[in-house]
């Protein structure tokens, strides 16, 4: 496997950093020669994972650190979003649609991640944090010119 590129970002757990994470991933993925729809889907998946870390993981405590790692290896884009927040007690239930603990929320974050990315794995330990690993297969040659 050829490693094309890698970045790691640590962000304070602030709502305005969701946009930052999204745009950093977009800039990172833009060398993959995707079209707007494909890139938009990756951005939505990242937004959902980072929002979850901030809202649920750290329950909006700004001192938490959200870590985002993006790796481009061969034709595979891997994105990992991690927090050291409160974790998920019932992971199976959380992954189901409509599992929101707040009636105002839709509980579709994981559903979006799973439908927009080719693979999504979630590891979580109550009281220790959550790690969401997402894989997207890049159909085109990563370093192709547009």
């Amino acid at each position, binding site marked *: 496997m050829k490693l094309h590129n890698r970045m790691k970002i640590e962000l304070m757990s602030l709502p305005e950093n969701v946009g930052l994470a*999204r*745009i950093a991933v977009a800039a990172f993925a833009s060398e993959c020669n*995707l079209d*707007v*729809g494909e890139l938009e889907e990756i951005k939505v998946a990242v937004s959902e994972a980072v929002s979850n870390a901030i809202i649920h993981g750290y329950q909006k405590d700004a001192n938490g650190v959200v870590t985002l790692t993006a790796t481009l290896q061969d034709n595979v884009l891997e994105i990992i979003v991690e927090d050291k927040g409160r974790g998920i007690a019932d992971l199976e239930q959380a992954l189901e649609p409509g599992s929101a603990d707040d009636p105002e929320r839709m509980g579709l974050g994981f559903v*979006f991640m799973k439908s927009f990315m080719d693979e999504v794995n979630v590891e979580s330990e109550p009281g220790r944090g959550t790690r969401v690993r997402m894989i997207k297969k890049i159909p085109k040659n990563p370093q192709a010119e547009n």
Partner: protein
Amino acid sequence: IGEIRRYLRDNNPIRVSRSLRDIAYKAIQVREVLLNKHSREPSLNEIADELNLPREEVIFAMDAIQEPVSLFEPIYH
């Protein structure tokens, strides 16, 4: 989901570079309009608000129409 997905796709069969260029040119126009209206340089927030886009999207687009590396780094060109 299918609907959202279709929305994202149907509206955007185009290349990223193309759509970024469109946003960037709109941003430049809006900047000009705001500059004339208020007789001062608008902030990026004001431009993004006017375009109804998140400000980081405007930043990404504006950056995309520039030289890939700094103007002062001739080595990659």
